Each structure stands twice: as C-alpha cells, then as structure tokens.
C-alpha cells in the first residue's frame, strides 16, 4: 500500500512525526506473559502496531543426539512472519531476511541465557510476527526474552531493544513503518540493560560517525524505559499467580 505512495514528509513544522510522536518518544507497549497452555513459557509483546507472540520449550533432551554440545545448551530459534502480518501477503516459506534475523536473534539470546547450566540439552524459542509495523526483530527478541523469563530459564538479564532511525535528517526513537520505509537509516539495538551489554546491533542506511554516537545515546534512553515496563510485567504475573 505504502509503496505506491510518494515519499511523505516524516517530520512536520512542529517537529512531530507522522504518528504525532516527538523524536524521542516510544510507541505504547503492552506485554502479556503466559499466553499459551502447552509451552513452558510464552509471551505477547506489542509495540505500537507491531505484535509478536513467542513460545519457549525446554530445556529438554537434544535430538538428534550428535547435535548436542558437551559444554552448553543448543538454542534452536525461529523468527517467522505470518502471511497476514504485512500489507501484502507474505509467502510463509522462510525468506533470506527471516533466516538472517533468526540468526541475529539466536546470537542475542545466547549471550543472555546461562546455556552452560544445561549441557547436552536444547531450548527451543519460536517467534511469530502477528502484525508487522516496523521493529519486528526487536519486538520478537523482547517477546522471546519475556517467554524465557516466564519459563523460568536462568538468564543474565532481560533483553530490551529499540530502533533508532533518521527521518528527514532528524534522529528518531522507535521507528514506525513510514520512517522505516522512507527514512535514511534504521539502527536496531538490544541490550541487557543492568549489565550495560549490547547483544544485538545492526545498521542499515547511512549515518555519520557523529550521528552514530548520538543514536546510541538516544537508544540507551529508550531501552531504559522499556526495561522498566518488562520488569513490571514480570512482577504483575507473579502477583496474579500467588
């Protein structure tokens, strides 16, 4: 739908974005834990109009056995978009993009999960994008992080992430779809906030080295906000259970 349109103005004369947000403002976030009966842990994570469901199975015995690793758990991670998550139907076969994102998400989870506690075992993490409206890799990663916490799997920290972009030359926090499509840059970054460690970091588009430094500062601020909401969601689940 958007592809046929002319490039819209991304920042108006008041300095606001196409959805009325300030450049440093996040979209509304909703987190729900334990949404699936069968999975050991699950979560729905919404950020604006992006919505992802994640499920965790394990730790469990690794099959086939020869794939098991003697010193740590094998993670099996799938990021997948439902065909109805985008404006035009997405072919459900895994695209090259989904294969790449499954890899960067797995690598991010490897650094958070204490995989050395479960040698020879496997943990499965599945993410389905239900609505795609920019930021799906990060919302998927955060949904996975919440599902892992819901499953009680030991982690060094929760993962919080946000994309910083450049729209009409202005650095903006948490890109929306128009900014993702028409903006000059998209820099997704995810961290373990208490440890100050970056677990996922990419950039496509162009930035100057100076803009990169400003973008990292902006991301840090957004990540701190999201992290508080994640901790709140976990505490709320515990209150419900007890």
């Amino acid at each position, binding site marked *: 739908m958007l592809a046929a349109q002319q490039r819209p103005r991304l920042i108006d004369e008041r300095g606001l974005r196409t959805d009325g947000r300030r450049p440093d403002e996040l979209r509304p976030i909703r987190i729900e834990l334990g949404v699936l009966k069968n999975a050991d842990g699950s979560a729905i994570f919404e950020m604006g109009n992006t919505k992802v469901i994640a499920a965790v199975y394990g730790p469990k015995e690794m099959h086939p056995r020869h794939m098991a690793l003697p010193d740590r758990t094998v993670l099996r991670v799938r990021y997948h978009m439902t065909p109805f998550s985008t404006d035009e139907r997405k072919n459900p076969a895994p695209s090259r993009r989904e294969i*790449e994102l499954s890899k960067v*998400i797995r690598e991010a989870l490897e650094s958070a999960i204490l995989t050395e506690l479960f040698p020879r075992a496997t943990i499965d993490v599945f993410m389905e994008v239900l609505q795609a409206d920019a930021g799906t890799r990060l919302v998927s990663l955060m949904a996975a992080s919440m599902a892992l916490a819901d499953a009680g799997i030991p982690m060094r920290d929760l993962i919080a992430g946000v994309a910083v972009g450049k729209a009409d030359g202005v650095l903006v926090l948490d890109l929306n779809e128009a900014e993702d499509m028409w903006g000059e840059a998209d820099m997704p970054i995810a961290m373990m906030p208490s440890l*100050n460690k970056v677990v996922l*970091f990419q950039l496509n588009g162009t930035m*100057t080295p100076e803009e990169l430094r400003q973008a990292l500062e902006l991301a840090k601020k957004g990540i701190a906000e999201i992290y508080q909401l994640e901790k709140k969601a976990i505490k709320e689940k515990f209150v419900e259970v007890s």
Partner: protein
Amino acid sequence: MSVTSDRLQTIVSNVKKASILKALERGVRLDNRKPDEYRPLSITLGYAKKADGSALVKLGDTMVLAGTKLEMDEPFPDTPNQGNLMVNVELLPLAYETFEPGPPDENAIELARVVDRSLRDSKAVDLSKLVIIPGKKVWSLWVDVYVLDFAGNVMDASTIAAVAAIYNTKLPKVEVNGEEVKVLTERTDVTPLAYPVVTLTAAKVGNFVVIDPNLEEESIADAKLSISYTPDMRIVGIQKSLGGAMKLEEIPQIEEVTRKAANRLFSELKNTFGIA
C-alpha cells in the same frame, strides 16, 4: 530455524587461547600483527574470464573469488529508472573441512545480506547506469561471491571482492530500436561502480579488540562488529555477530579504530589496485 553450532569454530585449545590473550596483553598477535593491523591484501581483477567482471581477493590466507553476470531484465515497477542488483555468497565445501554442499546456510545468507546492504545503502553501485530503456529494459547485475579458503574475516574479503568485481564489470554496447535491444559483443568503458565501499570487522577477544581477525582469533572471540564505510567516511552498514556481548561504550571506541583502518584500506585500494 537457527541452531547453535560449533561448525564454524576451529578447535582452539585452552593453551592456544591463553597464548593469544597473553600476546595481546603485550599488544601483539600470534601472526606478529598489531591489534589494528590488516593482513596483506592482494586483488587480481578479471580472474574469471567468462564473467562480466571478476576479482580474486586474498586477505592473508583467506581467499574469495567474486564474479558478476549481467542479464537483461525488466525493472521493478516501483524503480523504473534503476537496474537490479543481486548479491549471493557461497561458503564452498572446498573452503573448510566442515562445510557441506547445499543451499546457502544462515552464515552465507548473513554475509550476502551485509554485502548487499553496504553496496545498496551507500549507492556505491549506480543502478541508474544499468537502465537500457527506462521502465522497460534494464540490466540485472548478479554478484556471486565464492569463498575458496575460509581463514578468518571472510566478511571484509567478501565486500572487497564484490566491489572489485563490480569495478571490473564493463557494460556491453547496445543498439536500441524502439523497444528492440541488440546487445553487441563490444564493451563500453562504463562500470556500474560509482565509488568503492569497504567493510571493516573488529573482533572482541577477551578484553582486547583486534581488526581483521584470523580464524583462531575469530573462534575465541566473544563478538564481532562489522562496519561499512564510503570513501567520505559515512557509515553505511553495521552488523554485530557471534553469541557474545559488548559494552555500549565500546561501540564508539571500536568505530574509531575501524574508521582509521577503513581510511588506510581505501588508500590501498586506490594506490595499489586503482579502485577508486
């Protein structure tokens, strides 16, 4: 599905790992390089004669061959005044003991997509030069990068090989009669490369950062950061890889190191190989 695997890792003994870290404490590497030093680079343009453009790149012991092919195509409806660019990377079974034949796996796909984004976002490939009849006929530029010897930092070598092969590509002369296009055997002097891009990879090994990691360094690294640059030092792509993490403050520090190395690499491309 992405699965944890040690297939890309050489088995590096704890003794070797300790000696790599011990040497880095003294500011040297086991192959006698300084932490910010690139391995010797060689580029042979036109190595594969049937390709429209090709380049054999050696970076230390790493060897990568890139070849291009031009095919006449229709443009995408939303970009009538642009040709098409397609990048593919293959990790060949002859390149490393544990590599198997088959369609590109996640590692090959990631390499291809990082190279593709670097070339595309930088506008280093001038896609408007690939237009024959606007909206009707364009060239599709296929860039196939074949990894022949997997000896560390295949990422940077792949970008160099792709850039050099595109630089080596000269568009054929064509005769246009209305909507009829006749491709002649002669070539123009026109290359689709507007300017080179480079990707610089730094690896975090223990508390140290090294540029252009060799295979042993890569296999004990916690994380790698690959940053792509244009000659005017715009950043045109970043990819963090491997299952470890780095501190937020380390990113600007690493970027300063990779930027300096990128500057040196651009000088070498220009002065030694004439690619500018």
